[in-house]
C-alpha cells in the first residue's frame, strides 16, 4: 500500500505540468537527486550498531515567488522513499525495513552572485512506514526541520531557458519514535541529510 502511494506520488510529480500562465513573479520548480542520511538510531545489544537509511532518491516540488530583486520565497514539498539498514560495527549490513520521508518547508532565497543563490528554510518532516520495527508504535509525528541549500544556475543557453540549476541541500531534524521511547531511549537524535539535486523550473523571471 505504501509502495502504491509512493508510486502515485512519483507519477503525479513526473506528469505534473505547470499552469499555462504563471504570475510573472511566480515559478514552479521540480528537483530530483540522491540523498544521504545520517544514523537514525545508535544502539548496542551485545555489540554496537547503527540504523541508517540507505542512499535514496529525493524528489522536490517548489513554488517560488520573487519578493524583490535578488530575493525570493518558496514553499517546498520534499519526498524521499528509502530502505533502512542495520550496520553492525563488527561488519555486515542487514535489511531493517523501509519508509518514506515527507518534508514541507518554507524558505527564503538570496541571489548573491550571477547564477548563485542560497536558501534558508524551516518546516516539518514526517516518516511514513508500516508499523514494524522502530515504527511499530507509530512514526513519532512531525519533526521540526531546518534546511540550508546552495544553488547554481548553469551558464548555458539551454540551462537558462529551462531554469536548470544544481543544488546542494542540507537539512537536520531530531528523530525518535514511540517504540524507541518504550525501549528506553529518552532523548531524540539529530539526523542530518544531504542531497545533491538537479532542478528545472517554469515561469517567473528566470535565474539572475
Amino acid at each position, binding site marked *: 500500500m505504501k509502495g502504491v502511494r509512493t508510486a502515485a506520488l512519483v507519477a503525479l510529480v513526473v506528469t505534473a505540468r505547470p499552469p499555462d500562465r504563471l504570475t510573472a513573479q511566480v515559478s514552479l520548480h521540480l528537483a530530483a537527486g540522491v540523498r544521504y542520511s545520517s544514523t537514525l538510531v545508535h544502539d548496542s545489544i551485545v555489540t554496537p550498531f547503527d540504523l541508517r537509511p540507505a542512499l535514496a532518491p529525493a524528489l522536490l516540488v517548489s513554488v517560488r515567488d520573487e519578493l524583490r530583486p535578488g530575493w525570493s520565497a518558496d514553499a517546498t514539498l520534499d519526498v524521499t522513499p528509502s530502505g533502512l539498514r542495520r550496520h553492525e560495527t563488527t561488519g*555486515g549490513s542487514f535489511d531493517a525495513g523501509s519508509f518514506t520521508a515527507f518534508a514541507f518547508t518554507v524558505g527564503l532565497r538570496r541571489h548573491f552572485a550571477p547564477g548563485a543563490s542560497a536558501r534558508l528554510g524551516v518546516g516539518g518532516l514526517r516518516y511514513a512506514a508500516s508499523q514494524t520495527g522502530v515504527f511499530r508504535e507509530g512514526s513519532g509525528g512531525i519533526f521540526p526541520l531546518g534546511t540550508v541549500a546552495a544553488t547554481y544556475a548553469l551558464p548555458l543557453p539551454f540551462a537558462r531557458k529551462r531554469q536548470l540549476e544544481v543544488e546542494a541541500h542540507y537539512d537536520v531534524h531530531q528523530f525518535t519514535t514511540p517504540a524507541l521511547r518504550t525501549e528506553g531511549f529518552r532523548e531524540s537524535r539529530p539526523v542530518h541529510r544531504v542531497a545533491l539535486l538537479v532542478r528545472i523550473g517554469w515561469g517567473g523571471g528566470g535565474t539572475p
Partner: protein
Amino acid sequence: MTRSCAAALAGGLALAACTDPAIPDRGGVYSFADTSIVGVDTTVYLFHWPVARMPVRFWADPRGNMRFLVERAVGVWQDQFLYGELRGVVVNDSGSADVLVRWTDSVPPDVPPDTTPAPNACGGVTTFDYDSTGLGLAGPVHVSMTVLTGGPPASPAQVQACMRRVAIHELGHSIGLLRHSLFDEDIMYGSPSVDYPSRFDRRSAEVLYHSTSTIGPPPP
C-alpha cells in the same frame, strides 16, 4: 532582521547537531541458552535463525484455527524486534518449512477466547532434532500443541485463550528461546499465564538475536 533570523536558524541547527541520546539499559534478560554438562565439559546450546534464513518459514496444521494461532504468534514475536532481526512467514508446503506446528491429537473448537484462568487447559512441546555432530539441526523444528484433559474442566473458550498463550510460548522456543523464564510475568515462564511477551521476554529475544549461535540451522 534577515541576518538575525539566519543566525538563529544556524544556532538551532548547531544545537540540534550536538546531542546524542544515551543507549538504554537492557537489564533483566533471562537465560535462553541450554547447557549440558558431561564430566568437566559444559556445552552451551545457543540457537537463533540466521539472517540468511529470513524469513523463517512456519507451517501450520491445516485443521482448526492453527494457521491463525501461528500467524498471530509469528506476528507477536516479529513485533518484539526493533531492527528487523526476525521475520517469519506461514507457508503452505510442510516440506519447505523450518518450523512445523501440529495438533498432537484432538483439535479444539474455534471459538472466541475466554481469558478467565483455567490451569492446565492446554500444553505444548517444542523439539529440536540435532545432527550427529550435535552442533547443527538435522531438520525442521517440531511444535506440538495439545488439549489437556487431566486437570479441572475448561470451557472451549478457555482452551482457545490457553492456545493463544501457548502458541506464542512454543514459537518462542522455536526461534531460539530454549529455556524457561523463572518469572510468571514472562510468556516464556514454564506455565505461561500472561497473554503477550513481557519487556524481559523482548530483551531476551533481542540479546539472543545479537549473540553468536553455537548451533547451526537445518539444511535448507
